[in-house]
């Protein structure tokens, strides 16, 4: 089955079949990652450019390892080396990249829609590695892969997502992906960080519930995902201070004990220990946070493979 997309700009473009195809392939690549020699020649001679115009060590490293394990030539351009900082526009950067004829461009950018802008102007496949507050589809896919491994079929699974939903591209992509796969999503946030109309991202409609109390969600869910709280939201006046936020919306041991016994705990990272998640919970037995990281490489290998010119064998 051929993958029917040229780019991966957002979960909103994918069907459940597309997602299953990516996750199945990711499971295959996960196996490769456990071999002593973790490299396959699939993308030999292909060029992958990691254009990271917003700081991110984790996602960039994950993409870089994924590309290298597929034997692609990888070039990393980050915010400090890319010329956007010298006043060149994103479009100029895109055109310059185009002139070097890469096969895949992986873009991380602080502006929503940046990946769409680039995709409209270059021939290479574009993978959105996070654009502003819009989407972070590879994170959602690795979350889905991790959840599927632990919970199997995602239909009717209940997933809680707690934190700054308003500014979170992860929350948006997860919400779309999870509901597409049949899960029921419970979003928890202070009213100041719950964006209006977030329920309209849910496909089909009706599989999302909004809450402003974490405690009412804990006993319900099979998966509890905590989102990083950025301190700058405090200066924006969206919450009084970190201490109070942590007491009200943080996941500490007492709250974690109210989760169902088989519930797993996730976090897209980087952790803000002691704010949205207590270290004892993050490192506890129910945490699958490091598995998410491992799946990150496998999912990105799958995507590079599907979009990077490798055709999928029948």
């Amino acid at each position, binding site marked *: 089955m051929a993958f029917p997309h040229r780019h991966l700009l957002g979960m909103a473009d994918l069907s459940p079949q597309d997602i299953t195809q990516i996750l199945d392939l990711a499971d295959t690549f996960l196996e490769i990652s456990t071999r002593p020699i973790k490299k396959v020649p699939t993308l030999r001679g292909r060029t992958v450019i990691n254009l990271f115009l917003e700081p991110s060590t984790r996602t960039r490293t994950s993409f870089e390892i994924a590309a290298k394990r597929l034997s692609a030539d990888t070039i990393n351009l980050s915010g400090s080396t890319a010329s956007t900082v010298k006043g060149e526009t994103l479009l100029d950067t895109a055109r310059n990249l185009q002139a070097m004829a890469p096969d895949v461009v992986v873009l991380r950018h602080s502006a929503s*829609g*940046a990946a769409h*802008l680039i995709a409209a102007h270059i021939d290479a496949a574009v993978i959105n590695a996070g654009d502003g507050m819009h989407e972070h589809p590879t994170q959602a896919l690795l979350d889905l892969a991790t959840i599927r491994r632990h919970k199997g079929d995602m239909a009717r699974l209940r997933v809680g997502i707690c934190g700054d939903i308003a500014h979170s591209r992860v929350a948006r992509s997860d919400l779309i992906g999870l509901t597409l796969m049949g899960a029921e999503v419970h979003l928890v946030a202070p009213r100041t960080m719950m964006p209006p*109309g977030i329920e309209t991202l849910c496909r089909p409609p009706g599989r999302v519930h909004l809450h402003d109390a974490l405690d009412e969600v804990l006993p319900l869910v099979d998966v509890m995902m905590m989102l990083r709280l950025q301190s700058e939201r405090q200066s924006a006046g969206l919450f009084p201070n970190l201490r109070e936020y942590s007491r009200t919306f943080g996941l500490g041991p007492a709250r974690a004990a109210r989760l169902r016994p088989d519930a797993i705990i996730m976090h897209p990272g980087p952790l803000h220990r002691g704010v949205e998640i207590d270290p004892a919970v993050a490192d506890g037995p129910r945490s699958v946070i490091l598995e998410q990281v491992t799946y990150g490489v496998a999912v990105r290998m799958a995507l590079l493979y599907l979009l990077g010119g490798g055709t999928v064998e029948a």
Partner: protein
Amino acid sequence: MNDEIRQSEGSVPPPLLIRGGRVIDPAAGLDGCADVLLAGGRVVAVSPHISDGQVPPGARLVRASGLVVCPGFIDLHVHLREPGHEYKEDIASGTRAAAAGGFTTVCCMPNTTPPNDCRAVTELVLRRAAEVGVVRVRPIGAISQGLRGEALAEMAELKEAGVVAFSDDGRPVMNAELMRRAMEYARMLGLPLVQHAEDLSLSAGGVMNEGPAATRAGLRGQPACAESVMVLRDLELCALTGARYHVAHISTAASVRAVREAKRAGLPVSCEVTPHHLTLTDAACCSYDTATKVAPPLRSEADVAALKEGLADGTIDCFATDHAPHAPQDKQVEFDRAAFGMIGLETALPLLLRLVEERVISLPDMIARLTSRPATLFGLPGGSLRPGSPADVTVLDLQRVWTVDGTTIRSKSRNTPFVGWQVRGRAVLTVCRGEVVHDEMGPLPTAPPAPR
């Protein structure tokens, strides 16, 4: 001053006989087949039949049967970008775009560089308009010095120099005390005060309308109440001062409600709406097409419905384009970084005709809101075809189907989301001061035709 210079220097255009069109002149309550004779820069006669004997020698003939003949359109809100931003637009290109859209008068906003906050800039704009403008240009003066919202501009001198209203458009007057004093001055001078109503503390950082579409796109939203909070504050100040208060580009249901109630209470308030706020919703921004980034932002479906209601019941006085040209380098960037604004002069007519098609308003109502209503609000000449009125006339082909095409736009800028749209209705002839300034009818024969 503009007109005087023009009249004394220009050669007198030949008389014009516009024969057999459907003449719609809302100010005169006229809608019917008639001939219109223009001579000496004035409307000389409008009558069911003007006999050959009445036509002065050398007159040109416009065969208008099947076409609509109406007063030249008046736009209370355009950005001509001169002085200072001529790479986006200048008075020559902006007035050519106006003529192509059927407009014969445009009022230009003061947010130029330098801003039009003193006599010298007003005079410069009027002089450039006289030199290169193809339609009438009426400047709007700044409310505050440098548009900084701190101290009053020289409003009395601006009036002497020829401004027709005051506005800090693009920047709202946030300081209520300054707004109060500006209203008192405007009242004294007898000119309207035009507010770009936006509470900056509520809209800060927003690049589109707050709501489900913004949430889906991951773009920062401005809540609709950022507009109505300002409108409501200003209406209190309007009641206090008695100044004529005009809401620019009204865009939300709550603002329309506030203006409706204020009008009922007898306040001297008016408002305008743009074609784009009536045509598109915030869903258009989800494509990240930066042409859809405007201030105020495109709003929700419910807001658009409320705007149409406001038009139907007369709460909304007139149309204005908020023609806001931007160069590619201002727009071909990330949505967050793109400049606010879209051009509108050349697409206004077909977009507004959709309202007639949808039966929101009648054709004469639509034309009134482009002619007599704006003329009355800002005290401008024109807006009517009554004998003695300025010879500003637009001839419309309501059936003409055309495609908005980036290559044929007269404006220097191309920032419109309507490129590629197939639309219906076009100005085929625009006459300003008796002179043909836009013509898609081919060479005009002499009238009356020589006897065979």
